[in-house]
Protein backbone atom coordinates (compact mmCIF):
# COMPACT_ATOMS: atom_id res chain seq x y z
CA UNK A 1 0.00 0.00 0.00
CA UNK A 2 2.68 2.49 0.98
CA UNK A 3 4.53 1.69 -2.21
CA UNK A 4 1.37 2.29 -4.21
CA UNK A 5 0.85 5.72 -2.62
CA UNK A 6 4.42 6.65 -3.47
CA UNK A 7 4.06 5.43 -7.04
CA UNK A 8 0.84 7.37 -7.48
CA UNK A 9 2.67 10.54 -6.41
CA UNK A 10 5.51 9.71 -8.82
CA UNK A 11 2.92 9.26 -11.55
CA UNK A 12 1.45 12.63 -10.70
CA UNK A 13 4.89 14.24 -10.86
CA UNK A 14 5.66 12.67 -14.25
CA UNK A 15 2.19 13.65 -15.46
CA UNK A 16 2.84 17.26 -14.47
CA UNK A 17 6.10 17.29 -16.40
CA UNK A 18 4.32 15.90 -19.43
CA UNK A 19 1.59 18.50 -19.06
CA UNK A 20 4.12 21.36 -19.18
CA UNK A 21 5.31 20.04 -22.55
CA UNK A 22 1.94 18.98 -23.89
CA UNK A 23 0.31 22.33 -23.11
CA UNK A 24 2.75 24.20 -25.34
CA UNK A 25 2.66 21.62 -28.11
CA UNK A 26 -1.11 21.46 -28.21
CA UNK A 27 -1.49 25.27 -28.04
CA UNK A 28 0.84 25.70 -30.98
CA UNK A 29 -1.02 23.03 -32.90
CA UNK A 30 -4.46 24.35 -32.01
CA UNK A 31 -3.67 27.93 -32.92
CA UNK A 32 -1.07 27.85 -35.65
CA UNK A 33 -1.87 24.40 -37.02
CA UNK A 34 1.81 23.57 -36.66
CA UNK A 35 3.17 20.23 -35.61
CA UNK A 36 6.51 20.96 -33.98
CA UNK A 37 8.83 18.01 -33.40
CA UNK A 38 11.50 20.37 -32.08
CA UNK A 39 9.41 21.04 -28.97
CA UNK A 40 11.39 18.33 -27.21
CA UNK A 41 14.58 20.14 -28.20
CA UNK A 42 13.43 23.24 -26.29
CA UNK A 43 12.97 21.04 -23.24
CA UNK A 44 16.51 19.76 -23.72
CA UNK A 45 17.87 23.30 -24.15
CA UNK A 46 16.14 24.36 -20.93
CA UNK A 47 17.58 21.38 -19.07
CA UNK A 48 21.15 21.96 -20.29
CA UNK A 49 21.14 25.68 -19.65
CA UNK A 50 19.69 25.20 -16.17
CA UNK A 51 22.14 22.44 -15.25
CA UNK A 52 25.10 24.50 -16.41
CA UNK A 53 23.84 27.67 -14.68
CA UNK A 54 23.32 25.80 -11.45
CA UNK A 55 26.76 24.27 -11.62
CA UNK A 56 28.24 27.71 -12.26
CA UNK A 57 26.24 29.92 -9.89
CA UNK A 58 24.99 27.46 -7.31
CA UNK A 59 21.59 29.06 -7.39
CA UNK A 60 18.72 26.78 -8.34
CA UNK A 61 16.19 29.55 -8.86
CA UNK A 62 18.55 31.41 -11.15
CA UNK A 63 19.12 28.16 -13.05
CA UNK A 64 15.40 27.61 -13.60
CA UNK A 65 15.01 31.23 -14.66
CA UNK A 66 17.89 30.94 -17.11
CA UNK A 67 16.58 27.67 -18.51
CA UNK A 68 13.15 29.17 -19.11
CA UNK A 69 14.49 32.39 -20.57
CA UNK A 70 16.88 30.73 -22.99
CA UNK A 71 14.29 28.16 -24.08
CA UNK A 72 11.74 30.92 -24.69
CA UNK A 73 14.28 32.99 -26.61
CA UNK A 74 15.41 30.05 -28.75
CA UNK A 75 11.78 29.12 -29.34
CA UNK A 76 10.79 32.59 -30.50
CA UNK A 77 13.88 32.87 -32.66
CA UNK A 78 12.98 29.56 -34.25
CA UNK A 79 9.42 30.75 -34.84
CA UNK A 80 10.43 34.02 -36.45
CA UNK A 81 13.15 32.60 -38.68
CA UNK A 82 11.83 29.22 -39.75
CA UNK A 83 8.57 27.91 -38.36
CA UNK A 84 6.53 30.94 -39.45
CA UNK A 85 7.10 29.87 -43.04
CA UNK A 86 5.59 26.49 -42.32
CA UNK A 87 2.16 27.45 -40.98
CA UNK A 88 0.48 27.13 -44.34
CA UNK A 89 2.46 24.15 -45.55
CA UNK A 90 1.15 20.65 -45.10
CA UNK A 91 1.94 18.64 -42.00
CA UNK A 92 4.45 16.49 -43.81
CA UNK A 93 6.67 19.50 -44.54
CA UNK A 94 6.31 20.66 -40.96
CA UNK A 95 7.35 17.27 -39.63
CA UNK A 96 10.40 17.08 -41.87
CA UNK A 97 11.62 20.64 -41.29
CA UNK A 98 11.29 20.30 -37.52
CA UNK A 99 12.95 16.87 -37.77
CA UNK A 100 15.90 18.72 -39.30
CA UNK A 101 15.82 21.12 -36.35
CA UNK A 102 16.02 18.19 -33.91
CA UNK A 103 19.17 16.91 -35.61
CA UNK A 104 20.62 20.39 -35.38
CA UNK A 105 19.77 20.94 -31.71
CA UNK A 106 20.95 17.50 -30.60
CA UNK A 107 24.31 18.01 -32.25
CA UNK A 108 24.57 21.63 -31.08
CA UNK A 109 24.02 20.56 -27.46
CA UNK A 110 26.60 17.79 -27.86
CA UNK A 111 29.13 20.31 -29.16
CA UNK A 112 28.38 22.91 -26.49
CA UNK A 113 28.02 20.68 -23.43
CA UNK A 114 29.57 17.36 -24.44
CA UNK A 115 27.99 13.93 -24.66
CA UNK A 116 28.53 13.04 -21.02
CA UNK A 117 25.25 13.10 -19.08
CA UNK A 118 25.11 15.93 -16.54
CA UNK A 119 23.43 15.67 -13.16
CA UNK A 120 22.02 18.73 -11.43
CA UNK A 121 21.85 18.86 -7.62
CA UNK A 122 18.60 19.17 -5.70
CA UNK A 123 18.70 22.62 -4.04
CA UNK A 124 19.07 22.70 -0.25
CA UNK A 125 15.75 24.34 0.45
CA UNK A 126 13.92 21.57 -1.44
CA UNK A 127 15.96 18.58 -0.29
CA UNK A 128 14.79 16.00 2.19
CA UNK A 129 11.36 14.53 2.44
CA UNK A 130 8.12 15.01 4.31
CA UNK A 131 5.66 12.47 5.64
CA UNK A 132 2.15 13.67 5.00
CA UNK A 133 0.71 10.25 4.35
CA UNK A 134 1.53 8.14 7.42
CA UNK A 135 4.41 5.80 6.68
CA UNK A 136 5.21 7.31 3.27
CA UNK A 137 8.06 9.81 3.38
CA UNK A 138 8.07 11.61 0.04
CA UNK A 139 10.80 13.85 -1.46
CA UNK A 140 9.99 17.54 -1.15
CA UNK A 141 11.52 18.22 -4.54
CA UNK A 142 9.00 16.03 -6.36
CA UNK A 143 6.18 17.63 -4.39
CA UNK A 144 7.49 21.03 -5.48
CA UNK A 145 7.31 19.94 -9.14
CA UNK A 146 3.71 18.83 -8.64
CA UNK A 147 2.91 22.18 -7.02
CA UNK A 148 4.55 24.16 -9.84
CA UNK A 149 2.66 22.12 -12.42
CA UNK A 150 -0.65 22.71 -10.66
CA UNK A 151 0.11 26.42 -10.46
CA UNK A 152 0.98 26.54 -14.19
CA UNK A 153 -2.25 24.76 -15.05
CA UNK A 154 -4.22 27.29 -12.98
CA UNK A 155 -2.37 30.27 -14.50
CA UNK A 156 -2.90 28.94 -18.03
CA UNK A 157 -6.58 28.49 -17.33
CA UNK A 158 -6.88 32.04 -16.06
CA UNK A 159 -4.84 33.39 -18.94
CA UNK A 160 -6.83 31.67 -21.63
CA UNK A 161 -10.31 32.02 -20.22
CA UNK A 162 -10.15 35.40 -18.48
CA UNK A 163 -7.74 37.71 -20.31
CA UNK A 164 -7.83 39.60 -23.56
CA UNK A 165 -4.77 37.76 -24.87
CA UNK A 166 -6.46 34.49 -24.01
CA UNK A 167 -9.55 35.55 -25.88
CA UNK A 168 -7.45 36.29 -28.94
CA UNK A 169 -5.77 32.93 -28.57
CA UNK A 170 -9.12 31.17 -28.46
CA UNK A 171 -10.43 33.21 -31.36
CA UNK A 172 -7.23 32.59 -33.33
CA UNK A 173 -7.64 28.86 -32.88
CA UNK A 174 -11.11 28.75 -34.37
CA UNK A 175 -11.30 31.72 -36.73
CA UNK A 176 -7.81 32.66 -37.72
CA UNK A 177 -8.70 34.80 -40.72
CA UNK A 178 -11.49 36.61 -38.92
CA UNK A 179 -9.16 37.63 -36.11
CA UNK A 180 -6.73 39.00 -38.65
CA UNK A 181 -9.51 40.82 -40.49
CA UNK A 182 -10.41 42.55 -37.22
CA UNK A 183 -6.97 44.14 -37.17
CA UNK A 184 -5.17 41.92 -34.67
CA UNK A 185 -1.50 41.54 -35.46
CA UNK A 186 -1.69 37.82 -35.52
CA UNK A 187 2.01 37.39 -36.29
CA UNK A 188 2.94 38.91 -32.93
CA UNK A 189 0.32 36.79 -31.22
CA UNK A 190 1.78 33.66 -32.80
CA UNK A 191 5.28 34.50 -31.68
CA UNK A 192 4.04 35.13 -28.14
CA UNK A 193 2.12 31.87 -28.01
CA UNK A 194 5.13 30.03 -29.32
CA UNK A 195 7.32 31.75 -26.75
CA UNK A 196 4.92 30.70 -23.98
CA UNK A 197 5.04 27.08 -25.13
CA UNK A 198 8.83 27.20 -25.27
CA UNK A 199 8.94 28.78 -21.80
CA UNK A 200 6.92 25.92 -20.34
CA UNK A 201 9.09 23.35 -22.12
CA UNK A 202 12.16 25.08 -20.69
CA UNK A 203 10.59 25.06 -17.23
CA UNK A 204 9.94 21.33 -17.49
CA UNK A 205 13.50 20.71 -18.65
CA UNK A 206 15.00 22.83 -15.88
CA UNK A 207 12.95 21.10 -13.20
CA UNK A 208 13.69 17.52 -14.22
CA UNK A 209 17.45 18.19 -14.23
CA UNK A 210 17.93 17.06 -10.62
CA UNK A 211 15.81 13.94 -11.19
CA UNK A 212 17.04 12.64 -14.53
CA UNK A 213 20.39 12.86 -16.20
CA UNK A 214 20.62 15.79 -18.58
CA UNK A 215 21.82 14.45 -21.90
CA UNK A 216 21.59 14.77 -25.64
CA UNK A 217 18.46 13.08 -26.97
CA UNK A 218 16.49 13.51 -23.73
CA UNK A 219 14.01 15.63 -25.67
CA UNK A 220 13.25 12.97 -28.27
CA UNK A 221 12.06 10.40 -25.81
CA UNK A 222 9.75 12.71 -23.94
CA UNK A 223 8.52 14.21 -27.22
CA UNK A 224 7.04 10.87 -28.22
CA UNK A 225 5.33 10.52 -24.83
CA UNK A 226 4.03 14.06 -25.25
CA UNK A 227 2.57 13.11 -28.62
CA UNK A 228 0.82 10.19 -26.97
CA UNK A 229 -0.54 12.61 -24.37
CA UNK A 230 -2.01 15.06 -26.83
CA UNK A 231 -3.43 12.36 -29.08
CA UNK A 232 -5.16 10.83 -26.06
CA UNK A 233 -6.36 14.22 -24.86
CA UNK A 234 -7.49 15.45 -28.26
CA UNK A 235 -5.35 17.68 -30.45
CA UNK A 236 -5.50 21.37 -29.64
CA UNK A 237 -7.23 21.00 -26.28
CA UNK A 238 -5.47 22.19 -23.12
CA UNK A 239 -7.98 20.36 -20.96
CA UNK A 240 -7.28 17.24 -22.97
CA UNK A 241 -3.55 17.79 -22.50
CA UNK A 242 -4.04 17.90 -18.74
CA UNK A 243 -6.19 14.77 -18.67
CA UNK A 244 -3.91 12.92 -21.10
CA UNK A 245 -0.79 13.90 -19.18
CA UNK A 246 -2.20 12.61 -15.92
CA UNK A 247 -3.34 9.35 -17.52
CA UNK A 248 -0.03 8.74 -19.27
CA UNK A 249 1.97 9.75 -16.20
CA UNK A 250 0.07 7.29 -14.02
CA UNK A 251 -0.02 4.40 -16.47
CA UNK A 252 3.66 4.73 -17.35
CA UNK A 253 4.82 5.01 -13.74
CA UNK A 254 2.63 2.19 -12.43
CA UNK A 255 3.64 -0.08 -15.31
CA UNK A 256 7.30 0.58 -14.60
CA UNK A 257 6.78 -0.12 -10.91
CA UNK A 258 4.71 -3.27 -11.12
CA UNK A 259 5.08 -4.95 -14.53
CA UNK A 260 8.54 -6.48 -14.02
CA UNK A 261 7.39 -8.00 -10.71
CA UNK A 262 4.23 -9.35 -12.32
CA UNK A 263 6.21 -10.83 -15.20
CA UNK A 264 8.49 -12.62 -12.75
CA UNK A 265 5.52 -14.76 -11.80
CA UNK A 266 5.40 -16.22 -15.31
CA UNK A 267 8.97 -16.09 -16.62
CA UNK A 268 12.62 -16.25 -15.59
CA UNK A 269 13.77 -13.28 -13.50
CA UNK A 270 16.54 -12.22 -15.87
CA UNK A 271 14.18 -12.11 -18.84
CA UNK A 272 11.39 -10.50 -16.85
CA UNK A 273 13.45 -7.41 -15.98
CA UNK A 274 14.30 -6.56 -19.55
CA UNK A 275 10.97 -7.54 -21.00
CA UNK A 276 9.10 -5.75 -18.23
CA UNK A 277 11.02 -2.55 -18.91
CA UNK A 278 10.18 -2.75 -22.60
CA UNK A 279 6.57 -3.58 -21.94
CA UNK A 280 6.19 -0.67 -19.53
CA UNK A 281 7.64 1.68 -22.16
CA UNK A 282 4.86 0.44 -24.42
CA UNK A 283 2.09 0.72 -21.82
CA UNK A 284 1.15 4.33 -22.53
CA UNK A 285 1.06 3.64 -26.26
CA UNK A 286 -1.28 0.72 -25.67
CA UNK A 287 -3.44 3.08 -23.64
CA UNK A 288 -3.48 5.40 -26.62
CA UNK A 289 -4.54 2.57 -28.92
CA UNK A 290 -7.43 1.72 -26.59
CA UNK A 291 -8.53 5.36 -26.36
CA UNK A 292 -8.45 5.67 -30.14
CA UNK A 293 -10.56 2.59 -30.63
CA UNK A 294 -13.22 4.09 -28.38
CA UNK A 295 -12.80 7.76 -29.32
CA UNK A 296 -10.80 8.31 -32.52
CA UNK A 297 -10.54 12.07 -31.89
CA UNK A 298 -9.29 11.78 -28.32
CA UNK A 299 -10.95 12.42 -24.98
CA UNK A 300 -11.58 16.14 -25.48
CA UNK A 301 -11.66 16.76 -29.22
CA UNK A 302 -10.39 20.28 -29.90
CA UNK A 303 -11.89 22.55 -32.46
CA UNK A 304 -8.78 22.98 -34.64
Amino acid sequence: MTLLAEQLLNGLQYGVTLFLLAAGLTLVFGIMGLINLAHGSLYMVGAFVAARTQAGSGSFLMAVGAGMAVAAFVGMLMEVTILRRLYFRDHLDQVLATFGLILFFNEAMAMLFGRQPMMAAIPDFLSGSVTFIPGVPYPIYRLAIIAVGAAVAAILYGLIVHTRIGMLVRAGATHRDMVRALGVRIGVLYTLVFGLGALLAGLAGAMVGPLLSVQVGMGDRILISTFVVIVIGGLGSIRGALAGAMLVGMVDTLARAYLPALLKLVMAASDADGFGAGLSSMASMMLMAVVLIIRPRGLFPGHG
Partner: protein
Amino acid sequence: MVEAIRRRLVIASTALLMLALPLVADRLAMPDLVALGTQVAIYAVAAVGLDLLIGYTGLSSFGHAGFFGLGGYVVGILAFHAADGSLFLGVVPGATAAWIAWPAAILISALAALAIGALSLRTSGVSFIMITLAFAQMLFYLFVSIKTYGGDDGLGFRRRNALPWINPRDDVAFYYVCLAVLALVLAACHRLVRSRFGIVLLGIKQNERRMAAIGLDGGRYKLAVFTLAGAIAGLAGALQANLLRFVSPDMLHWTMSGDFMVMVVLGGVGTLVGPVFGAAAMVLLQSWLTQWTEHWMIVMGPVLVAVILLTRRGIWGALAGRR
Protein backbone atom coordinates in the same frame (compact mmCIF):
# COMPACT_ATOMS: atom_id res chain seq x y z
CA MET B 1 6.91 15.06 -75.54
CA VAL B 2 10.29 16.58 -74.83
CA GLU B 3 9.65 16.04 -71.16
CA ALA B 4 8.88 12.39 -71.68
CA ILE B 5 12.14 11.90 -73.56
CA ARG B 6 14.06 13.76 -70.90
CA ARG B 7 12.50 11.61 -68.18
CA ARG B 8 13.44 8.42 -70.01
CA LEU B 9 16.97 9.66 -70.55
CA VAL B 10 17.40 10.41 -66.84
CA ILE B 11 16.02 7.01 -65.86
CA ALA B 12 18.09 5.15 -68.46
CA SER B 13 21.33 6.87 -67.52
CA THR B 14 20.70 6.34 -63.81
CA ALA B 15 19.95 2.66 -64.40
CA LEU B 16 23.11 2.35 -66.50
CA LEU B 17 25.18 4.04 -63.81
CA MET B 18 23.81 1.72 -61.13
CA LEU B 19 24.43 -1.35 -63.29
CA ALA B 20 27.99 -0.27 -64.00
CA LEU B 21 28.73 0.79 -60.42
CA PRO B 22 30.83 -2.28 -59.46
CA LEU B 23 32.99 -1.77 -62.56
CA VAL B 24 33.41 1.92 -61.76
CA ALA B 25 34.26 1.10 -58.15
CA ASP B 26 36.83 -1.38 -59.38
CA ARG B 27 38.41 1.11 -61.79
CA LEU B 28 38.58 3.87 -59.18
CA ALA B 29 39.84 1.37 -56.60
CA MET B 30 37.02 2.44 -54.29
CA PRO B 31 35.39 -0.84 -53.18
CA ASP B 32 33.29 1.05 -50.59
CA LEU B 33 31.18 2.35 -53.45
CA VAL B 34 29.56 -1.06 -53.86
CA ALA B 35 28.47 -1.11 -50.21
CA LEU B 36 27.16 2.44 -50.55
CA GLY B 37 25.29 1.49 -53.73
CA THR B 38 23.75 -1.52 -51.97
CA GLN B 39 22.65 0.71 -49.12
CA VAL B 40 21.08 3.15 -51.57
CA ALA B 41 19.17 0.35 -53.33
CA ILE B 42 17.86 -1.04 -50.02
CA TYR B 43 16.71 2.30 -48.63
CA ALA B 44 15.20 3.06 -52.02
CA VAL B 45 13.05 -0.08 -51.87
CA ALA B 46 11.57 1.03 -48.54
CA ALA B 47 11.20 4.64 -49.68
CA VAL B 48 9.38 3.66 -52.89
CA GLY B 49 6.91 1.73 -50.75
CA LEU B 50 6.48 4.75 -48.48
CA ASP B 51 5.82 6.91 -51.54
CA LEU B 52 2.74 4.78 -52.22
CA LEU B 53 1.42 6.03 -48.90
CA ILE B 54 2.65 9.63 -48.88
CA GLY B 55 2.55 10.45 -52.55
CA TYR B 56 -0.38 8.44 -53.84
CA THR B 57 -2.72 8.09 -50.87
CA GLY B 58 -1.88 11.16 -48.81
CA LEU B 59 -1.00 9.12 -45.73
CA SER B 60 2.05 10.56 -43.96
CA SER B 61 3.23 7.52 -42.07
CA PHE B 62 5.94 8.30 -39.52
CA GLY B 63 6.40 4.65 -38.58
CA HIS B 64 7.90 3.11 -41.67
CA ALA B 65 11.07 2.07 -39.85
CA GLY B 66 8.94 -0.22 -37.67
CA PHE B 67 8.19 -2.52 -40.60
CA PHE B 68 11.71 -2.14 -41.98
CA GLY B 69 13.20 -3.23 -38.67
CA LEU B 70 10.68 -6.00 -38.20
CA GLY B 71 11.64 -7.50 -41.57
CA GLY B 72 15.28 -7.31 -40.55
CA TYR B 73 14.61 -8.99 -37.22
CA VAL B 74 12.72 -11.84 -38.89
CA VAL B 75 15.85 -12.63 -40.90
CA GLY B 76 18.07 -12.16 -37.86
CA ILE B 77 15.95 -14.29 -35.55
CA LEU B 78 15.60 -17.10 -38.11
CA ALA B 79 19.37 -17.10 -38.58
CA PHE B 80 19.87 -17.08 -34.80
CA HIS B 81 17.72 -20.19 -34.35
CA ALA B 82 19.24 -21.91 -37.36
CA ALA B 83 22.71 -21.39 -35.87
CA ASP B 84 22.02 -23.23 -32.60
CA GLY B 85 19.21 -25.48 -33.79
CA SER B 86 16.75 -24.08 -31.26
CA LEU B 87 13.10 -23.25 -31.92
CA PHE B 88 11.40 -19.83 -32.01
CA LEU B 89 8.71 -19.84 -29.28
CA GLY B 90 9.36 -23.57 -29.11
CA VAL B 91 7.67 -24.22 -32.46
CA VAL B 92 9.32 -22.56 -35.45
CA PRO B 93 12.73 -23.81 -36.54
CA GLY B 94 15.38 -21.36 -37.81
CA ALA B 95 16.18 -20.86 -41.46
CA THR B 96 19.04 -19.56 -43.53
CA ALA B 97 17.61 -19.96 -47.04
CA ALA B 98 16.48 -16.72 -48.62
CA TRP B 99 13.42 -18.34 -50.11
CA ILE B 100 12.16 -18.99 -46.58
CA ALA B 101 13.52 -16.02 -44.66
CA TRP B 102 12.64 -13.23 -47.09
CA PRO B 103 9.00 -14.21 -47.67
CA ALA B 104 8.71 -14.70 -43.90
CA ALA B 105 10.01 -11.14 -43.38
CA ILE B 106 7.54 -9.80 -45.93
CA LEU B 107 4.66 -11.72 -44.39
CA ILE B 108 5.36 -10.72 -40.78
CA SER B 109 5.83 -7.06 -41.71
CA ALA B 110 2.62 -7.14 -43.72
CA LEU B 111 0.71 -8.65 -40.82
CA ALA B 112 2.11 -6.03 -38.45
CA ALA B 113 1.17 -3.29 -40.93
CA LEU B 114 -2.32 -4.76 -41.22
CA ALA B 115 -2.81 -4.63 -37.44
CA ILE B 116 -1.18 -1.23 -36.93
CA GLY B 117 -2.93 0.18 -39.99
CA ALA B 118 -6.33 -1.03 -38.82
CA LEU B 119 -5.89 1.00 -35.63
CA SER B 120 -4.01 4.02 -37.01
CA LEU B 121 -6.28 4.57 -39.99
CA ARG B 122 -9.13 5.38 -37.63
CA THR B 123 -7.43 8.76 -37.38
CA SER B 124 -6.11 11.09 -40.04
CA GLY B 125 -3.81 14.07 -40.49
CA VAL B 126 -1.54 14.90 -37.59
CA SER B 127 -2.97 12.20 -35.32
CA PHE B 128 -2.08 9.63 -37.96
CA ILE B 129 1.51 10.90 -38.08
CA MET B 130 1.84 10.68 -34.31
CA ILE B 131 0.16 7.31 -33.97
CA THR B 132 2.24 5.59 -36.60
CA LEU B 133 5.26 7.06 -34.84
CA ALA B 134 4.09 5.71 -31.50
CA PHE B 135 3.41 2.21 -32.85
CA ALA B 136 6.82 2.00 -34.49
CA GLN B 137 8.32 3.14 -31.21
CA MET B 138 6.45 0.30 -29.48
CA LEU B 139 8.16 -2.18 -31.79
CA PHE B 140 11.45 -0.44 -30.99
CA TYR B 141 10.97 -0.90 -27.24
CA LEU B 142 9.86 -4.48 -27.80
CA PHE B 143 13.13 -5.42 -29.48
CA VAL B 144 15.19 -3.40 -27.01
CA SER B 145 13.64 -5.44 -24.23
CA ILE B 146 14.12 -8.95 -25.64
CA LYS B 147 17.49 -9.96 -24.24
CA THR B 148 17.51 -13.31 -26.05
CA TYR B 149 17.94 -11.45 -29.34
CA GLY B 150 20.55 -9.04 -28.06
CA GLY B 151 18.34 -6.27 -26.71
CA ASP B 152 20.04 -2.92 -27.16
CA ASP B 153 23.17 -4.45 -28.64
CA GLY B 154 21.44 -6.09 -31.57
CA LEU B 155 21.90 -9.50 -33.07
CA GLY B 156 24.62 -10.55 -35.48
CA PHE B 157 24.75 -13.65 -37.64
CA ARG B 158 27.50 -15.29 -39.59
CA ARG B 159 26.48 -15.41 -43.20
CA ARG B 160 23.95 -14.05 -45.61
CA ASN B 161 20.82 -15.97 -46.54
CA ALA B 162 21.56 -18.60 -49.16
CA LEU B 163 20.32 -17.85 -52.66
CA PRO B 164 20.54 -20.36 -55.50
CA TRP B 165 23.56 -19.84 -57.83
CA ILE B 166 24.83 -16.91 -55.81
CA ASN B 167 27.83 -16.92 -53.52
CA PRO B 168 26.67 -15.30 -50.28
CA ARG B 169 30.13 -13.89 -49.65
CA ASP B 170 30.23 -12.02 -52.91
CA ASP B 171 29.38 -8.36 -52.18
CA VAL B 172 29.02 -7.47 -55.85
CA ALA B 173 26.54 -10.29 -56.39
CA PHE B 174 24.55 -9.14 -53.40
CA TYR B 175 24.55 -5.61 -54.81
CA TYR B 176 22.96 -6.92 -58.01
CA VAL B 177 20.41 -8.88 -56.00
CA CYS B 178 19.36 -5.68 -54.22
CA LEU B 179 19.30 -3.79 -57.50
CA ALA B 180 17.09 -6.47 -59.03
CA VAL B 181 14.72 -6.29 -56.06
CA LEU B 182 14.56 -2.51 -56.44
CA ALA B 183 13.80 -2.83 -60.15
CA LEU B 184 11.05 -5.36 -59.45
CA VAL B 185 9.50 -3.23 -56.71
CA LEU B 186 9.62 -0.14 -58.93
CA ALA B 187 8.03 -1.97 -61.84
CA ALA B 188 5.32 -3.46 -59.66
CA CYS B 189 4.51 -0.13 -58.02
CA HIS B 190 4.54 1.60 -61.39
CA ARG B 191 1.91 -0.81 -62.66
CA LEU B 192 -0.03 -0.58 -59.43
CA VAL B 193 -0.43 3.20 -59.44
CA ARG B 194 -1.72 3.06 -63.00
CA SER B 195 -4.21 0.32 -62.22
CA ARG B 196 -7.75 0.86 -61.01
CA PHE B 197 -6.49 0.40 -57.46
CA GLY B 198 -3.95 3.19 -57.93
CA ILE B 199 -6.54 5.54 -59.39
CA VAL B 200 -8.75 4.95 -56.36
CA LEU B 201 -5.80 5.78 -54.10
CA LEU B 202 -5.26 9.08 -55.90
CA GLY B 203 -8.97 9.75 -55.55
CA ILE B 204 -8.74 9.14 -51.80
CA LYS B 205 -5.81 11.54 -51.59
CA GLN B 206 -7.81 14.27 -53.31
CA ASN B 207 -11.14 13.76 -51.63
CA GLU B 208 -12.10 10.70 -49.66
CA ARG B 209 -15.69 11.82 -49.17
CA ARG B 210 -16.19 12.00 -52.90
CA MET B 211 -14.88 8.46 -53.26
CA ALA B 212 -17.40 7.34 -50.64
CA ALA B 213 -20.12 9.10 -52.60
CA ILE B 214 -19.40 7.02 -55.66
CA GLY B 215 -19.57 3.90 -53.57
CA LEU B 216 -15.91 3.16 -52.77
CA ASP B 217 -14.94 2.37 -49.20
CA GLY B 218 -11.73 4.38 -48.80
CA GLY B 219 -10.85 2.68 -45.54
CA ARG B 220 -10.32 -0.71 -47.15
CA TYR B 221 -8.13 0.73 -49.89
CA LYS B 222 -6.05 2.66 -47.37
CA LEU B 223 -5.58 -0.43 -45.23
CA ALA B 224 -4.60 -2.45 -48.30
CA VAL B 225 -1.97 0.04 -49.43
CA PHE B 226 -0.68 0.49 -45.87
CA THR B 227 -0.22 -3.27 -45.62
CA LEU B 228 1.48 -3.39 -49.00
CA ALA B 229 3.89 -0.60 -48.06
CA GLY B 230 4.64 -2.44 -44.81
CA ALA B 231 5.38 -5.61 -46.75
CA ILE B 232 7.78 -3.76 -49.06
CA ALA B 233 9.49 -2.21 -46.05
CA GLY B 234 9.82 -5.69 -44.57
CA LEU B 235 11.54 -6.89 -47.73
CA ALA B 236 13.92 -3.93 -47.57
CA GLY B 237 14.60 -4.75 -43.93
CA ALA B 238 15.42 -8.35 -44.86
CA LEU B 239 17.94 -7.05 -47.41
CA GLN B 240 19.39 -4.63 -44.86
CA ALA B 241 19.89 -7.44 -42.35
CA ASN B 242 21.70 -9.38 -45.07
CA LEU B 243 23.86 -6.42 -46.03
CA LEU B 244 25.19 -5.93 -42.52
CA ARG B 245 24.64 -9.49 -41.24
CA PHE B 246 23.42 -7.66 -38.18
CA VAL B 247 20.13 -6.30 -36.89
CA SER B 248 19.64 -3.88 -34.02
CA PRO B 249 16.89 -1.67 -32.60
CA ASP B 250 18.51 1.22 -34.52
CA MET B 251 16.73 -0.10 -37.60
CA LEU B 252 13.41 0.63 -35.90
CA HIS B 253 14.41 3.92 -34.37
CA TRP B 254 12.08 6.83 -35.09
CA THR B 255 14.87 8.82 -36.74
CA MET B 256 15.01 6.05 -39.34
CA SER B 257 11.31 6.66 -40.06
CA GLY B 258 12.16 10.33 -40.41
CA ASP B 259 14.98 9.48 -42.80
CA PHE B 260 12.61 7.48 -45.01
CA MET B 261 10.18 10.40 -45.15
CA VAL B 262 13.03 12.72 -46.03
CA MET B 263 14.10 10.41 -48.86
CA VAL B 264 10.59 10.50 -50.32
CA VAL B 265 10.19 14.26 -50.05
CA LEU B 266 13.75 15.05 -51.07
CA GLY B 267 13.47 12.81 -54.13
CA GLY B 268 10.01 13.90 -55.18
CA VAL B 269 6.65 12.97 -53.63
CA GLY B 270 4.34 10.87 -55.75
CA THR B 271 6.86 10.01 -58.45
CA LEU B 272 8.07 6.51 -57.39
CA VAL B 273 11.48 6.99 -59.03
CA GLY B 274 12.03 10.18 -57.03
CA PRO B 275 12.58 8.33 -53.74
CA VAL B 276 15.44 6.39 -55.37
CA PHE B 277 17.22 9.69 -55.94
CA GLY B 278 16.22 10.78 -52.45
CA ALA B 279 17.77 7.63 -50.97
CA ALA B 280 20.94 8.15 -52.98
CA ALA B 281 21.18 11.78 -51.87
CA MET B 282 20.71 10.87 -48.19
CA VAL B 283 23.23 8.03 -48.20
CA LEU B 284 25.86 9.95 -50.15
CA LEU B 285 25.40 13.15 -48.16
CA GLN B 286 25.66 11.24 -44.89
CA SER B 287 28.75 9.33 -45.90
CA TRP B 288 30.37 12.46 -47.25
CA LEU B 289 29.58 14.52 -44.15
CA THR B 290 30.74 11.82 -41.74
CA GLN B 291 34.11 11.74 -43.47
CA TRP B 292 34.31 15.45 -43.05
CA THR B 293 33.24 15.89 -39.43
CA GLU B 294 31.86 13.77 -36.61
CA HIS B 295 29.32 16.52 -36.02
CA TRP B 296 27.74 15.90 -39.42
CA MET B 297 24.23 16.31 -38.07
CA ILE B 298 24.84 19.97 -37.39
CA VAL B 299 25.07 20.36 -41.16
CA MET B 300 22.47 17.76 -42.08
CA GLY B 301 19.76 19.37 -39.95
CA PRO B 302 19.89 22.83 -41.54
CA VAL B 303 20.27 21.27 -45.00
CA LEU B 304 17.00 19.44 -44.40
CA VAL B 305 15.26 22.57 -43.21
CA ALA B 306 16.50 24.51 -46.24
CA VAL B 307 15.44 21.76 -48.64
CA ILE B 308 11.93 21.66 -47.19
CA LEU B 309 11.56 25.44 -47.12
CA LEU B 310 13.05 26.24 -50.48
CA THR B 311 12.21 23.38 -52.78
CA ARG B 312 8.87 22.01 -53.77
CA ARG B 313 9.42 19.37 -56.41
CA GLY B 314 12.33 17.36 -55.12
CA ILE B 315 15.36 16.08 -57.00
CA TRP B 316 13.32 14.18 -59.55
CA GLY B 317 11.34 17.31 -60.33
CA ALA B 318 14.55 19.22 -60.97
CA LEU B 319 16.08 16.45 -63.09
CA ALA B 320 13.07 15.58 -65.15
CA GLY B 321 11.53 19.01 -65.47
CA ARG B 322 8.18 17.98 -64.16
CA ARG B 323 5.74 20.70 -63.39
